[in-house]
């Protein structure tokens, strides 16, 4: 697979990563263009979450390059990558359980040294998207429900005014209604604010309908790529990820 766009916001080239001796990424190529929603789908253990974490250097890439806005970030320390305004709502949400909702959001704002005005505007935006959080501001993160935690994880990521937002299974374990609210919020952010999004999902149907383009990952390799609509039509996608059967 080769890059098609002139200047992708994120370009991943032949990326390899491993946990100890287990190779999780075996040479991944992937592009995300500015303003795009890109979906990454695949079965459990395919390496989707690893790819997201490797972009942040956790684990470090064994080979290959990661370019953000043309700059090589492969060997940058994790916190400096975050300060380039790449934000992630990671697998398992990873809310700070003993911090209030307000502090969790502040942690997101701290990631980029934005001014007080930007911070207030960002907070306003997050609370408009997820009004539920407004009622929970003083509550500890650990006491929120799963859906609220997911909203908080996305809200926290948004507080850094990201140029690239990465979402790892935002609908996992949520009631369908809440999941829809979250997908709606992502669509709104993309359309209104031009936010670039990489979304990892097992719910391929949802993700491919939302995304402009999608990649399919199997055993640490990208096996298919195309627009969301194209991928939804592919028989092997329908068989593997859409029609009930979730074969590895």
């Amino acid at each position, binding site marked *: 697979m080769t890059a098609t766009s002139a200047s992708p916001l994120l370009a991943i080239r032949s990326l390899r990563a491993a946990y100890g001796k287990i190779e999780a990424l075996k040479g991944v190529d992937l592009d995300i263009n500015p303003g795009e929603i890109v979906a990454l789908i695949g079965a459990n253990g395919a390496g989707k979450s690893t790819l997201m974490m490797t972009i942040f250097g*956790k684990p470090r890439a064994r080979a290959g390059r990661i370019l953000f806005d043309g700059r090589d970030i492969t060997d940058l320390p994790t*916190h400096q990558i975050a300060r380039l305004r790449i934000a992630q709502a990671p697998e398992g949400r990873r809310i700070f*359980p003993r911090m209030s909702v307000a502090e969790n959001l502040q*942690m997101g704002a701290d990631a980029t040294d934005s001014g007080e005005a930007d911070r207030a505007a960002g907070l306003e935006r997050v609370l408009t998207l997820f009004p539920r959080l407004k009622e929970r501001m003083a509550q500890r993160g650990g006491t929120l429900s799963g859906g609220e935690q997911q909203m908080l994880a996305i809200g*926290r990521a948004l507080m*850094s005014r990201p140029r690239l937002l990465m979402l790892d299974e935002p609908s996992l374990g949520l009631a369908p209604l809440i999941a829809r609210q979250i997908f709606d919020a992502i669509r709104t952010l993309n359309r209104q604010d031009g936010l670039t999004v990489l979304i990892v999902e097992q719910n391929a149907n949802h993700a491919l309908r939302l995304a402009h383009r999608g990649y399919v990952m199997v055993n640490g390799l990208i096996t298919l790529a195309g627009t969301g609509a194209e991928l939804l039509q592919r028989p092997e996608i329908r068989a593997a990820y859409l029609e009930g059967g979730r074969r590895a």
Partner: protein
Amino acid sequence: MDYFAQQLINGIVLGSIYGLIAIGYTMVYGIVGMINFAHGDIFMIGGFIALISFLILVSIGLTVVPVILLIVLLVSMAITALYGWTVERIAYRPLRHSFRLAPMLSAIGMSFVLSNYSQVAQGARVKPVPPIITGGYTLLEQNGFVVRLSNVQIIVVVTTIVLLAIFTWLVARTRLGRDMRACEQDQTMAALLGVDVDRTISMTFVIGAALAAVAGMMYLLYYGLVDFYMGFVAGIKAFTAAVLGGIGSLPGAMLGGLAIGLIETLWSAYFSVEYKDVAAFSILIIVLIFLPTGLLGRPEVEKV
């Protein structure tokens, strides 16, 4: 009653010193999950630096006691903080991703290094100083028994309260404090949010060492002596205080410090001085049987 009141005062003063040291144990445990066995020796280093800077100030002819105390306080905090930073940098950080016991063993080694280094550099004998702060107040006089509150005691307790207030504000309200709490709860996520985890851990050691330095200086003022070995017993006591209060809990460290100080003092006053340590550790054991996470510790399980 008057005897009890006097012992209460003594216990609170001793407890303040333990509490200041205990905070360093509990902070480091919270953020990197290791017991920093060299922390007691950092306290000892703080005492020595206070002594040395005091002697230097006096020898250059400074006589205004409050000014001397303030300079000694700041100098010993700064230099001891540097020791704390260095110990973390050379003995713990390289081992952070090693097996769990490695930094702990390294800490025990560091403890020996620091105390032996002080023994070689400063000599093995106890270093006494003449009372720097004298005087005090008689609170009560009854049946020939006098309850006294000395100026040193006031200074120890007031300094501890002021520092704790600043420290609590720092942890609860500042960016650094928030970063420290974030690292304590989830280091990977903190890094994903732009927190420089290494720097935050360094700062934790720096702050812990600065508080231990204050404890060292207070010890010097209160007991009028320091020696290279004083970090061992005080360190074990403060560690006990941190466990008693609930390791990882900052208010717990202070509460545990006060508890150990009071138990020790009251036991010495009413039973026997020889068994005061036995009493303190026995109470620790009893508390841990009924509250395995200490007085203010939180259970390990968190709702996620």
